[in-house]
């Protein structure tokens, strides 16, 4: 039995800027080897989006990035036919823009999926926050991605992928994704990193941080996470906080209710008040 993982030229090993645990690394490699879209879910600040950028960087591929909006219908990610511009050109002339009103191709612009399909090299295609779109859009998109082809309806022209892109999809679980959609992806839930992993993550950003300082900070950080705030602090908050403490020349993270720069960790007024022990009269 031939071993694809070892022999495949596309093997993702992580980069110096991004901490990657072995589990996630294998999952990325399995998805690449199987040619399936990889759907990443998990709390904010677990590095879902960043992972796609790091894959592109590590494999030396170019990125196509689609940040989803609730108004997307899916097609605009493949191509946009600019009717309004063409109407305008036909009415007022295209001037010296070089566009030919009689040539529809001058008015078709490819979106991220279109570009990933039409380009010569293999690309990493990121569909960020897919859950913002509605479920019909998601199904349409997956049809396109699975077939590796889409049709430009206006001229009934089929665009085929020259190279299947590596597809990374992220979701913040704002809304449930449909079952057919999930069925077509490899899904992975990125758990929140534990203290040992967090040490490595922080060190990537602040390599010269003193050991004792780091451990004291993490202790406070995880304690706060446990306390059940409405918006528990995540990795981004931790990094901001450590950055703020270092910039402010604070010697230690403080203890108990005396945490320095608490505003960088807790964002909601309610949470800060709760932390300080002032419970607003908001009882049931």
């Amino acid at each position: 039995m031939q071993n694809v993982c070892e022999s495949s030229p596309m093997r993702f090993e992580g980069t110096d800027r991004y901490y990657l645990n072995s589990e996630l690394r294998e999952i990325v490699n399995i998805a690449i080897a199987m040619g399936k879209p990889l759907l990443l879910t998990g709390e904010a600040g677990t590095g879902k989006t960043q992972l796609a950028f790091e894959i592109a960087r590590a494999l030396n591929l170019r990125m196509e990035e689609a940040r989803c909006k609730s108004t997307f219908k899916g097609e605009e990610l493949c191509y946009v036919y600019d009717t309004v511009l063409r109407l305008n050109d036909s009415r007022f002339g295209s001037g010296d823009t070089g566009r030919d009103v009689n040539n529809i191709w001058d008015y078709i612009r490819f979106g991220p999926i279109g570009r990933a399909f039409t380009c010569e090299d293999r690309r990493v295609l990121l569909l960020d926050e897919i859950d913002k779109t509605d479920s019909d859009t998601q199904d349409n998109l997956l049809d396109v991605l699975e077939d590796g082809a889409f049709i430009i309806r206006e001229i009934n022209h089929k665009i085929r992928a020259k190279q299947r892109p590596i597809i990374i999809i992220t979701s913040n679980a704002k809304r449930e994704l449909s079952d057919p959609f999930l069925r077509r992806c490899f899904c992975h839930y990125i758990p929140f990193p534990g203290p040992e992993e967090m040490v490595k993550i922080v060190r990537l950003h602040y390599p010269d941080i003193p050991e004792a300082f780091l451990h004291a900070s993490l202790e406070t950080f995880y304690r706060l996470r446990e306390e059940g705030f409405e918006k528990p602090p995540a990795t981004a908050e931790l990094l901001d906080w450590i950055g703020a403490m270092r910039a402010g020349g604070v010697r230690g993270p403080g203890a108990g209710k005396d945490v320095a720069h608490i505003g960088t960790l807790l964002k909601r007024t309610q949470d800060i008040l709760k932390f300080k022990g002032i419970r607003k009269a908001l009882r049931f």
Partner: protein
Amino acid sequence: MIDFIYGLMRAGIPVSVHYILEFYRGLRAGIAPDLDRLFLFARLVFVKKVEHYDAFEQVFRHVFLGDPSVDPEDWEALLTGKPFQEWLRRQVESGRLPLEALREFDNEELLERFWRTVMAQDGEHHGGNTWVGTGGRSPFGHSGRHGGGIRVYGESLHGTAQKVIGARRYIQYSDETPLRSENLRQVLSTLKSLRPVGPENELDVDTTIYRTAKNGGEIELVFQRELRNRVELIVLVDNGGYSMVPYVDLVKTVFNKIRDCFRDVRFYYFHNCIYGTVYADPQRRQPVSWEKLLASGKKTRLIIIGDANMAPAELMASYGSIDPATAIRKPGFVWLRELREAFPVSVWLNPIPRDHWPWNSPTIGRIGDIFHMEDLTLGGIKNATAYLNIQGQGVDQAA
């Protein structure tokens, strides 16, 4: 392997033949050379929701970590092993599968047929006169085990599978877990699917053409705002009984967070049972009139959160209220029935786990006859949401 698939099905994880074939293709391509990668690969293929991670890990451990006859070097044999060969032989012998078909079908097609057969059996008929039985303890019977058992520790991925499974990291996301602050996100995303959303802007082609023609060819673009179906929601909370105490804050947080998804979310309170009045404040001092509440029924979704656990008299008897000074004759269940009729789209969420309902109080069953009842777990909330959506569709269409 059959055990594994049945295990997944029994654990409530949806499995399709499609997954199994994909799994087979991956194994054939050598995706999973050791147990750890097999674990990750199987999870990617079979498990699509974090709610199922815990159940998957338990099944995986049971099937693969407990059985020394499983050989990580020879995974292919798991899928095309003895039960498959046996089935194939019987298919040919019985004439269900003509020999020439064998040559035409490739492996995958045969495998697909085999697994369809396996899955058509619901997993309870082992060893009967069915086509596929797991028979004895070691159905796969290959003896070429590489001495020393399976590689879990050390040389591979630092024992990911073992470590991961031991920790049960995903238990708080399991469908049977009660509502807690850790799994709020899951609940929120479920509840958000309560409303359909569409894109907001659309080019109104007809009007655009009409206006452009009127302008003598001068283009005028007309956009229209697509209608958004935003539902109203009323949440009735029992803030009396002590079984509600751990949930009151959570419930409130949950529904406040999704407030922007609805045109309006209102909270009303009651104690134990409803007798014609609910209250706008938690202290139950500002009554909301029954007529006003019922009037909004048709276009509003109603979620009642309460333990439905009370003295039978509180529900069934006249003057039954827990408040001794009550002057209300109509018994609680009549009021509840009125409420149910006024709100065609409504559901009851109960913080008491479903298994305990029959033992906890007879009133739970009685109220369950009036309102569709789910428990306050991730799975329960999901069911409740699905139920509301189905009911809502019917009502919206009729309107």
